[in-house]
């Protein structure tokens, strides 16, 4: 099984969302930047906004296999700079033939309003 190709197939391309803040629309692009080395899959959520602003993010993941299950939550605040991609965190886990996982990235503004969300799952 080519896990990397499957992951790539499941890769959801950039998701955009918009928010009206002070009468001005903000475009936020978020994505999962995936790399794989051997059986280890690394996922680094990224965000890009054509603005200079502080946001909050939360990445949750659940993984299960015959070996067991793991739950990961990474959250925090970040500041965007126009035309710069911001890497928010990094999560890595090993893949086996029976591995399944789901992942969700949510970005909100400091008031808690959702700016963008993205999900990734396998299979």
């Amino acid at each position, binding site marked *: 099984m080519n896990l990397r190709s499957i992951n790539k197939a499941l890769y959801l391309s950039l998701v955009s969302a918009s928010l009206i803040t002070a009468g001005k629309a903000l475009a936020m692009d978020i994505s999962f930047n995936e790399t794989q080395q051997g059986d280890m899959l690394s996922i680094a959520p990224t965000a890009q906004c054509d603005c200079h602003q502080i946001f909050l993010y939360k990445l949750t993941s659940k993984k299960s*296999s*015959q*070996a*067991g299950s*793991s739950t*990961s939550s*990474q*959250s925090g605040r970040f500041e965007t700079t126009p035309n710069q991609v911001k890497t928010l*965190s990094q*999560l890595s886990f090993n893949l086996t033939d029976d591995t399944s996982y789901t992942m969700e990235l949510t970005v909100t503004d400091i008031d808690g309003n959702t700016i963008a969300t993205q999900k990734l799952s396998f299979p």
Partner: protein
Amino acid sequence: MRLNKAIALYTLSLSPVVIADNFVDAFQSGDTNNLSTQQLATTDATAFQHQSGEGNDIKLLQRSSELSFTEQTQIGTGNRSTVQQQTGEGQTASTHQSGDDNRAIIYQTTSPLNVEGHITQTGEGNYARIDQNTETSFVYADIYQTGIDNYAALRQTGSELSFELNQTGEANEVYASNKVGSFDGGQYGNDLNTLITQSGQGNVLNFLQTGEMQNALINQSGEANTTTLTQTGMLSSVQFDQSGFNSQATIVQDGVNNQLEYTQSGDDNLLTINQIGDDNFLIGESIGSNQKVISNQIGTDLIAEVNQEEGSLSDAIITQSGEHNYIYVNQAGDGHIANVTQSDINQNAYVIQTGAGNISNIVQGSL
């Protein structure tokens, strides 16, 4: 050099006394004096020995006595005190030294019940050792040292053993471990209790407990301190608290049903934990930046809960080998790394990271 003769209020100097209710109270002042007392085959033997000056020497032997009691006081530098209590039930020995480069040793052997040894030292470069090789019950020792470059050693065998140590100052050392030096130190038996407090800089603690139902409470505060604690046996517990900077600790628990609770506060500290056996449990928190916790557990039904808070750039490297284990890692701050590894099956891992630039690596399954 002027030598003062002994001022002894009662009998002394190598004269054995073989009657009940013995009482000795001796004083010496001056330098390089010797004060030696033997109380043999008595009950209710009591000996007080006092010296002031330099290079003085006290020796006491209480043998075959019940309810032996002795107290030594030495004021000055380069003094020596050696107490031996043998065979009787209810032995109590106390030695107090103030000054530098003093040495106090208490040997208590073969008592069937109730043994106490106490040493207090104030100054620099002092040495205290309590050796309670009793194979009996209700054994207690304490050592209090204030100053720098002091050294404390302990050996206890039996059951219901208790040890309390308090060191304040710099570069003080405790050796009660058979892994360090030639002294075969530590606590050996069942129902062991230890309370150790070290405050200052550059202090070193080496401690060993072997048996069942061990309990160690350790508090180290200051900078660049080091702790090595080993427990072998079952039903043991450790409460470890280290505060300061650049300190490190290694805690080993080899047995089943053991538990460890820890707190490390400050920056740049390192904690290494090894738990070998089933049904072991560890929980703790690191407060500060650049803290590193390395935990390795081998067995089944293991629990590891690691919290790193109020700082940045801390690492949690948590490994479990066996089945049906659980890991929980909580990191708050920026730039933390969580490496979680669980081999075998039926594992659970939870990693929570709050902040920016954190990295989580989770590996589960046969490695």
